[in-house]
């Protein structure tokens, strides 16, 4: 005899309650904000309005069938500059910051002494555990006009007066990219190291017997074996091109370097928190998510064609 749905539910009631608590949490903190995207299509949402009231739904929609804020963003005089800053820093991080952890993991794996290897590994994780605020504090100290970098530059005779690095837009991208690599090099390598450890040691033995040098083995065995991991992380990185590291950039941002530090995330934050234009800010955020999803999709397609590895 088949049990009724109610009977099954009653038997599982403890598990069901445990699961439903999670579902309720997700409905509130994941799904309600998705519903809140409606704000982006409203004429001018005010923070005092409740998302869950009937009157909120009746507030006027934005012009152009609700798309006025999106049109305004594309016409915004800041648009080009913000997009350039966002993509510029992200692409630099991708081009320089993406291969380095792979190289680091491979080189680490070539170390003969396990003790030495473990020490290097442990030390390389350290910066990941510093907060961006702390690293921001270190950077502002180092880069101030009397800071360590300027002391060294003056000592070496490159400059007579201290350069105010964080007040000049032209240095900002470099500071962001280098500090990001410094912080995450060792941590990002963990995943590749795990992949390298999983390679069949027989492959290396056979190659050694054949007389292949260790340098050749890296290109003939190690890299091809971790290709799948590299591809998946690459797809994810491309999908993240429009996401700046908000924590990082907010700490280093100041009005003097704004022309090269205003990225989409910072702009959204300022538009909402300073100008209180919540509808406009939500529209910019949604624009970013849609483009990001498209990028992820494209990267997935391309890698699928090129080497038959894909995320979905």
């Amino acid at each position, binding site marked *: 005899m088949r049990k009724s749905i109610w009977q099954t539910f009653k038997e599982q009631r*403890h598990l069901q309650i445990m699961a439903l*608590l*999670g579902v309720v949490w997700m409905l509130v*903190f994941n*799904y309600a904000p998705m519903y*809140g995207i409606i704000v982006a299509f409203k004429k001018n949402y005010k923070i005092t309005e409740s998302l869950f009231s009937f009157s909120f739904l009746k507030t006027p929609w934005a012009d152009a069938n609700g798309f006025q804020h999106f049109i305004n963003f594309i016409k915004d005089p800041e648009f080009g500059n913000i997009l350039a800053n966002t993509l510029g820093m992200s692409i630099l991080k991708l081009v320089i910051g993406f291969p380095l952890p792979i190289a680091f993991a491979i080189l680490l794996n070539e170390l003969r002494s396990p003790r030495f290897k473990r020490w290097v590994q442990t030390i390389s994780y350290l910066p990941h555990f510093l907060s961006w605020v702390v690293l921001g504090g270190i950077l502002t100290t180092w880069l101030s006009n009397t800071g360590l970098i300027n002391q060294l530059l003056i000592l070496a005779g490159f400059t007579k007066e201290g350069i105010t690095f964080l007040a000049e837009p032209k240095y900002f991208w470099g500071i962001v990219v280098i500090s990001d690599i410094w912080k995450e090099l060792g941590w990002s390598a963990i995943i590749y190291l795990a992949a390298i450890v999983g390679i069949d040691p027989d492959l290396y033995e056979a190659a050694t017997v054949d007389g292949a040098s260790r340098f050749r083995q890296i290109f003939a065995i190690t890299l091809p074996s971790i290709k799948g991991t590299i591809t998946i992380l690459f797809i994810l990185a491309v999908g993240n091109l429009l996401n700046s590291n908000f924590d990082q950039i907010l700490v280093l941002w100041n009005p003097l370097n704004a022309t090269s530090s205003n990225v989409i995330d910072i702009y959204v934050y300022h538009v*909402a928190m300073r100008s209180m234009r919540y509808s406009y800010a939500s529209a910019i*955020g949604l624009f970013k998510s849609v483009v990001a999803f498209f990028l992820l999709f494209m990267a997935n397609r391309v890698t699928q064609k090129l080497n038959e590895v894909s995320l979905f």
Partner: protein
Amino acid sequence: MNTSNIQHHASLHRQMMMAKVGERALEFLMVLICFVTLYPVWYTVVISLNESADTMLGGIYWWPRKFTLDSYKAVFMDKNIIKAFNITIWRTLIATVGSVFFISMVAYAFSKRHLMGHKFYMMLGTITMFFGGGLIPYFILIKNIGLYDTFWVYVIPGLFNFWNALIFISFFREIPAALEESAHIDGANDFTIFLKIILPISTPVLATIALFVGVWNWNDYFMGVIFVNNPDLQPIQTFLYRVIASATASRAVVAMPVGISGGQVNSQSVQLATMVVTTAPIIVIYPFLQKYFVKGIMIGSIKG
């Protein structure tokens, strides 16, 4: 002995020499990377231990020139800093314990394939990994449900996370069913089984997730910037952010020694000392928990 044999010998010798040189170069590179990694942290500690007026003269690289603990005394005398430390400690403790318990509980239920609606629950979770409302709708929600400017904004919104739930789910599915069956026969309900049998054998995953959640909460400053207005509710990272942000623009132009106690301690050295105190607990703990987070990343990567 013919010449080719000798030649072969010579080339082999050369190859070994090359390998030796390569190995030394590699070791040197690794030591260099370690130096570049450690020096900024070391330098911060050194400056925080040096007399601040003396620091302004420059030329300190390796060791404090005029050693003093004044900056640290100033940190621990400052009521606002102590208050902020308290917030950080409490939010980290409560959020970590609460979230590890909540995620593991939900994940345990989700891990049961025979659970009615199991597929639907997993789909609900998977969607959250790829889609979200974005910062502003999230901010509006926090305002709407009354969490804005309360201590609980640090705890409740961070209680659950489907990525971490997946790590638990994959672990729970490896547990032999026999363990739970015998308890079922003894009449224990599923919640008791989760509490008394499952949790105690899950310490490795619990530690991994606790470490991730704990470090995140300890280091987060953004929640305090965006969701909290009351200065008494600022965690130490947010406090530091405000100090740095207000100083960045001005210090980027000229270094400003601001006297706090008779010119002995300036704001920069107090800031550095606060940074050291803030970071020290994590730096001391993480090497011992290395195997847990490495394992966590590996499980996460296989699933993701």
